[in-house]
């Protein structure tokens, strides 16, 4: 279980975890946090111009982090396998058909292997949007 502490922090197993910027979707009342396979998986993405600066201090294409029940970091997602832009950060994490996906800025939904954070792009996904 996790508890939302603020726009950029959560509590897992009594440990408060802070992110470099807001949890994506937090300001739309749809925080990008999913739980699967005993992990709490969080996507963070800047909400304001100010946050883009702190976001620049981390690997922006690995901005989905997974934590175990004690709040320990298990993995950071792998970068997208298709990278049309100079930087292709993830802007959401969600579950569909029981699988975890990371949606990214350029419009693709990558399936995430929750054992190690590796990503694959499903076939027949259609155009990026």
């Amino acid at each position, binding site marked *: 279980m996790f508890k939302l502490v603020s726009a950029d922090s959560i509590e897992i197993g009594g440990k408060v975890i802070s992110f470099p910027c*807001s949890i*994506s*979707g937090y*300001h*739309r009342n*749809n925080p*990008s946090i999913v739980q699967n396979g005993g992990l709490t998986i969080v996507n963070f*993405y*800047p*909400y*304001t*111009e100010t*946050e*883009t600066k702190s*976001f*620049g201090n981390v690997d*922006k294409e690995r901005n989905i982090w997974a934590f175990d029940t004690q709040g320990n970091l298990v993995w950071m997602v792998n970068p997208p396998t*298709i990278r*049309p*832009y*100079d*930087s*292709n*950060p993830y*802007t*959401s994490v*969600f579950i569909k058909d029981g699988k975890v*996906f990371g*949606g*990214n*800025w*350029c*419009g*693709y*939904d990558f399936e995430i292997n929750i054992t190690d954070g590796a990503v694959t*792009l499903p076939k*027949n*996904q*259609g*155009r*990026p*949007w």
Partner: protein
Amino acid sequence: MNVIANIDTVMEMAYVKVEAYMTTPHSAADLAQLEATIVASIIPMLSGGAVAEVAADEAMLTAAAAEFANEAVPYLTDAVSGAAKLRSLAPKLLTQLTTEGVDTINVAAAAAKSSDVAVTVVADAVETGAIDAVDAGQVMRVVDSAKSIGFKSAEEIKQHAGVLERWSSNFKSLKTEEAAVVNAGFEQAPYLVGTKVIEFETTAAESFVRVHGPNNVARSWVMRESDIAGLSAPEIAAKFNIRDVPSQLSRVDIPAGVKVRTGIVGPNGFGNAKGAVQYEILMPDIPESWFQPIRSF
């Protein structure tokens, strides 16, 4: 009225002008005026870039030029001193259209002069009631947009009419690329092969919208609100070949200084629609707050 159709109208008017000069007897003053008109207007207009229907009307214009050379010039030769210059101008025009061919005309150079010419012709068109002021404004926007982007043929202008009609004076064109080249960066093609994709930078704020679901709010693909007005969510998905029918609509206000690409939607693995105009925000790390909810579908 369709903008491209307006351009046809404008070109037709220009042709009528040429024809009128050919068939009417002229005084010395008339000839001087004719010379000035040709120099200032007709030749650069026929040279292409301005109204850009030259290629489509190549046969007609070539015939006009031939008539001009074969009939008008001999007539003028017997006239006053200005005729000599006219005689040299007409064959030059004929050479341009017949020997070099319309495609080889340096349209880019012509386009540099085209706006002034187009203003005159469009003003005439409005004055005679051929088109109204609103349509005239649209014609001029297309002419100016084509010049701004650097489109160099009538075919390009026709092919990208949607992009041109949505072009803004707040866009500064940076470069154009073949859609196939841009598509190569993606897993499935977002742009219509055979067309151009234009990269530009905003010089002032511009408003767009994005359709999406709960899990794909902040992403690079947006469109003009007018392009989805009155459409249902499934109709929007079909128009833009989007896999998932959107459930929400957000406004995306892009400030000055942001790089964006625009081009035409093409068929892909999900849909076969083509022709819609889309925009792609190229700068990463765009704050999520740029996407402000408008409504749900």
